[in-house]
């Protein structure tokens, strides 16, 4: 039977190959970068026109980034409306009534220019980074389960936000209408982070699952077609460790995965997780790891790491240090392939467990926004490390 099956498969493959078309013509000169371009919203066009006028009249002061050019065009940064005070705390709790929980999700919606946030009870909120105010957009995520909003990813192609339910499914949020739909099933995949890949246009999800739980799989989800693609496997190296997909670098076109846990007061031998300590893995999305880098910040839970979208060569992680309550802000330089010294904590914020927070990059104000589960919202200045409270915690 075995040999018979082999013969049948060979015959099948012959039929397959017989249908192969002629090889395509491939250019012999370097093509223009075949990158998917980020959509340019109306306000960005307006800003572009205004910038052009400024150049024409000889205005100075425009800064042009000339360091290693990212291959993917990012949305043009936009300013808040005249009179806005994005660094001044918003007034009151602004109807902020959600139930505290660590099972939240947050992401910056690039077209809407607001943060999409799902609280621990499944309610969806929009945070305006110019006025520092909340608006409830949806009362309850359909089919909401624990961890339902563990990872939110803004899908540029479809202009929708993808929420990865760590238990059972993929939820898709349309910010224009404030509606959610349950789109597909994750099956037995337990998500360990997700990012948007501007090259393929897929939401890339890292997950365990299948017959070999020691492997970490990378899958791509297409919001438009509701299909999954296999993108690669990181095999058998970290076992059941806390390895997470924390970001995508447009500068190097690589995924950044980070995890592991170094010895500390609660785990003196570092045996609770791999004793080798934190490790960063870079993955090309061409089914290959491009670097394995020892070191970097400790991450102790899936909620301990966030990577703000497309910050050029930098990504930030809010991580625990040696103790449960000591949060530190560390940045990863994807070009230099190294972590900084976590010095952005020069002026500490609330110093609470980072597992209780979500952090996103706010491209409008070029800052990080950290939302804690008690309802307080903080901004982190990327140059000075200064923390500014944007919304007071709930009474």
């Amino acid at each position: 039977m075995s040999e018979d099956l082999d013969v049948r498969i060979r015959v099948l493959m012959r039929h397959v190959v017989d249908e192969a078309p002629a090889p395509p013509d491939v250019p012999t000169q370097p093509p223009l970068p075949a990158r998917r371009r980020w959509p340019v919203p109306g306000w960005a066009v307006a800003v572009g026109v205004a910038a052009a006028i400024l150049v024409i009249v000889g205005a100075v002061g425009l800064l042009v980034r000339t360091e290693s050019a990212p291959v993917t065009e990012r949305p043009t940064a936009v300013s808040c409306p005249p009179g806005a005070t994005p660094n001044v705390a918003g007034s009151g709790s602004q109807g902020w009534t959600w139930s505290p929980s660590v099972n939240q999700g947050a992401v910056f919606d690039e077209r809407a220019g607001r943060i999409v946030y799902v609280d621990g009870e499944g309610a969806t909120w929009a945070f305006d980074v110019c006025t520092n105010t909340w608006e409830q957009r949806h009362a309850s995520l359909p089919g909401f389960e624990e961890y339902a909003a563990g990872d939110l990813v803004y899908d540029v192609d479809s202009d929708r936000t993808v929420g990865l339910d760590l238990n059972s499914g993929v939820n898709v949020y349309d910010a224009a209408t404030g509606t959610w739909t349950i789109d597909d099933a994750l099956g037995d995949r337990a998500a360990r982070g997700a990012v948007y890949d501007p090259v393929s246009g897929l939401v890339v999800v890292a997950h365990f699952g299948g017959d070999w739980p020691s492997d970490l799989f990378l899958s791509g989800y297409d919001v438009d077609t509701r299909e999954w693609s296999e993108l690669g496997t990181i095999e058998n190296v970290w076992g059941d460790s806390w390895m997470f997909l924390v970001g995508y670098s447009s500068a190097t076109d690589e995924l950044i995965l980070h995890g592991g846990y170094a010895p500390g007061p609660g785990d003196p031998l570092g045996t609770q997780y791999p004793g080798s300590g934190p490790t960063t893995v870079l993955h090309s999305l061409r089914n290959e790891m491009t670097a394995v880098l020892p070191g970097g910040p400790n991450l102790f839970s899936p909620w301990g790491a966030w990577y703000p979208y497309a910050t050029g060569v930098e990504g930030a992680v809010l991580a625990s240090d040696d103790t449960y309550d000591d949060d530190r802000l560390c940045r990863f330089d994807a070009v230099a392939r190294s972590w900084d010294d976590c010095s952005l904590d020069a002026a500490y914020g609330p110093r609470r467990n980072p597992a209780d927070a979500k952090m996103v990059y706010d491209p409008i104000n070029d800052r990080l926004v950290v939302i804690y589960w008690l309802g307080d919202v903080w901004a982190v200045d990327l140059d000075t490390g200064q923390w500014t409270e944007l919304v007071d915690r709930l009474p």
Partner: protein
Amino acid sequence: MGMETLTRGEVYERYRVELTRLATSLVGPSEAQDVVSDALVRVMWSDGWDQVENQRAYLYRAVVSQAGMLRRSAQRRRERERQATQVIHGSPDGGVDVWEALGHLSVAERAAVFLAYWEDLSEVDAAARLGVSERTVRRRLGRARRKLGRLLQ
């Protein structure tokens, strides 16, 4: 053995037929050319191409990766492939839709089957070509054989 230095055009000329066959086995004839073209443009003109030692293996991995990332419009793809489908006459089971059979395999499994059953590579050589471990190839082939075994009985 000295490393042969080939231009990009020469590399492509040497491997284009087998890469297109590989892509056909991964995504079907209607998408194969696009996959090969996109994969090669992406890797051959990247900055690091000149440092790639095993260019053939690298191109294989690029095609497999591109096939995995291919953005499919499910309905459009099904329709195209339905049109391209040929029922195997006199095939091992007397009438299996080859694309439907392959549709039960993942891209990675299809690549392993292609290398093992079309190119007659050993598991060791297939693993080297795909840049994965021998164990990975073995289990992908095992899964593929189980799936195809049910369909081809």
